[in-house]
């Protein structure tokens, strides 16, 4: 899954060697006008609202502070210890792991299979693509509410299925055993279409000659798929995995309408844990410590992943 509508494997784009125009002569000072006028707005906004807050999070995380006035009660690394001692934090971490596992083991194969089917031209293929993609652009909040109806033990679709078999319906979102499972299903529902689209776009960009050549050499459909198409898709698969993991680390909106992280903190993600335990209790120090931990996980992951899995691109 990937939470925000995003469009590229991030880091890679920077690497593309820049080939700026080399300008000599009279236009020389025009360059500086551009730099002075065009760069500061972006850099300023980015610094004030992205970089500085991250730095401040590190600073605030050393205080016990309720957000009023200025932080004065310095407690060093205690907030980190408090976070690590909170059982719900480890549950949240486990849940993020579960989301990643489901993304890789269920969502990715599903998306790939569908992409292979729908990349071909047949009547209805485009309509189906769009249909499968649609959940992705719906707001997480709306999706969460829709599924809290679907799962509702009294009114929902699940309830009526159970009633059909004459049993009392379980409240999936209300049990510590099933709440996270229910959320995982919603995650697949919402995000598989995005990954499918990634694969379709990749398939359409494939060199058809390679496939043709293999066919002429007498390879079966299955062999072509296994030995030609899938290997050609590796970059996209790695990209899809990257999005799934980053997306899992940001998941929040979907959890709130479904369970708010409950029951008994069994379905928190790292971000909903941060909201429930930091923001809504106005424990700025504690919440900032969670933020810093999350930040560290994200950055470490991004760099490691890039180094180990995307280096050939």
């Amino acid at each position, binding site marked *: 899954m990937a939470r925000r509508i995003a469009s590229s494997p991030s880091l890679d784009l920077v690497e593309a060697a820049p080939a700026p125009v080399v300008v000599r002569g009279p236009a020389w000072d025009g360059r500086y006008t551009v730099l002075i006028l065009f*760069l500061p707005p972006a850099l300023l906004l980015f610094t*004030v609202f992205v970089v500085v807050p991250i730095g401040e999070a590190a600073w605030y995380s050393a205080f016990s502070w309720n957000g009023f006035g200025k932080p004065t009660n310095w407690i060093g690394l205690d907030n980190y210890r408090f976070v690590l001692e909170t059982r719900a934090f480890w549950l949240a971490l486990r849940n993020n792991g579960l989301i990643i596992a489901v993304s890789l083991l269920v969502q990715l194969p599903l998306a790939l299979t569908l992409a292979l089917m729908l990349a071909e031209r047949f009547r209805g293929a485009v309509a189906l693509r769009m249909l499968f993609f649609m959940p992705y652009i719906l707001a997480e*909040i709306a999706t969460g509410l829709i599924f809290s109806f679907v799962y509702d033990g009294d009114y929902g679709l699940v309830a009526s299925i159970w009633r059909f078999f004459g049993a009392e319906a379980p409240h999936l979102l209300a049990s510590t055993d099933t709440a996270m499972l229910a959320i995982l299903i919603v995650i697949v529902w919402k995000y598989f279409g995005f990954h499918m689209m990634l694969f379709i776009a990749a398939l359409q960009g494939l060199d058809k000659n390679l496939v043709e050549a293999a066919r002429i050499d007498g390879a079966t459909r299955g062999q072509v798929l296994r030995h030609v198409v899938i290997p050609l898709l590796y970059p996209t698969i790695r990209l899809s995995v990257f999005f799934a993991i980053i997306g899992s680390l940001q998941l929040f909106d979907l959890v709130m309408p479904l369970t708010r992280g409950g029951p008994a903190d069994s379905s928190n993600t790292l971000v909903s844990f941060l909201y429930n335990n930091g923001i809504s209790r106005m424990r700025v120090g504690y919440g900032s410590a969670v933020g810093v931990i999350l930040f560290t996980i994200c950055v470490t992951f991004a760099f490691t992943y890039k180094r180990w899995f995307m280096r050939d691109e």
Partner: protein
Amino acid sequence: MNSVETTRPPLDPVVLYKALFLAAIAAFVLVPLLATVLGGFKSLGELRVNPFGLPQHWEWQNYADILFSKRYWQLLRNSLVISTLAVTLTLIVASMAAFAFAHVRFFGSSMLLSYLTLGLLFPAATAVLPLFIKVRDLGLLDTYFGVALPQVAFSLAMSVLLLRRFFKDIPYELLEAALVDGCSYIKFFRYVTLPLSRPILATVGTITFVNSWNAYLLPLVMLNTDELYPWPLGIMVYQGEYSSEWHLILAFITLTILPTIILFIFAQRHIVAGLTAGAVKG
């Protein structure tokens, strides 16, 4: 018997399984959505016994009440204002920066660009508490800008990268010729780069719009007055108020996701293009 049948091409079982599989997935996607739309047409009593099917009595009242309420339109207006602000600012700020990065060589260019792309690495949530305090100290709590500005800041990285790559594809000779003719960089940006870049601007704009339109966490933290609430916040309040009256909540959900679906139908090209633009660069 058999010989007659075989005059038609036999139904390939692979095709059949494929069709069944696709139908099952389509149902998986569609059923919750249809149940939501139809649920809004039912009474609470009927919803309980018949959550799936078509309503026996079409209750137009649920939808009508919402459509004629000030609340619904206020939520949509707020969302529209915030998203428009975010899109406008993102396009202006990001395209200027992207232009500088694409066409001007200067010391530290690649360093600054790497600095901006740090924004891709972590979600806004990590810094949301300090961000709240920052916005408060700037006096922007409870304003549209308090939500829109952080949104712009967090979408800058992606936007600048996308725009820069597109700008770089504008032929170098064009810029050189223009400069020799005494045209300034700024004029070139205004009269050549921007008009040529409409597709990518539309793509970046659409992505920013959808993200901002759907956002929940930032408005939740930054806004406190319900007159300013965008629709994701408003619908959560609505749900808190009508807790189990699902028929009303479903009607409300339907009407609030409607604009997204309409936008999707008209702008699907840009949305899909936006997400695949970088992915398949090869």
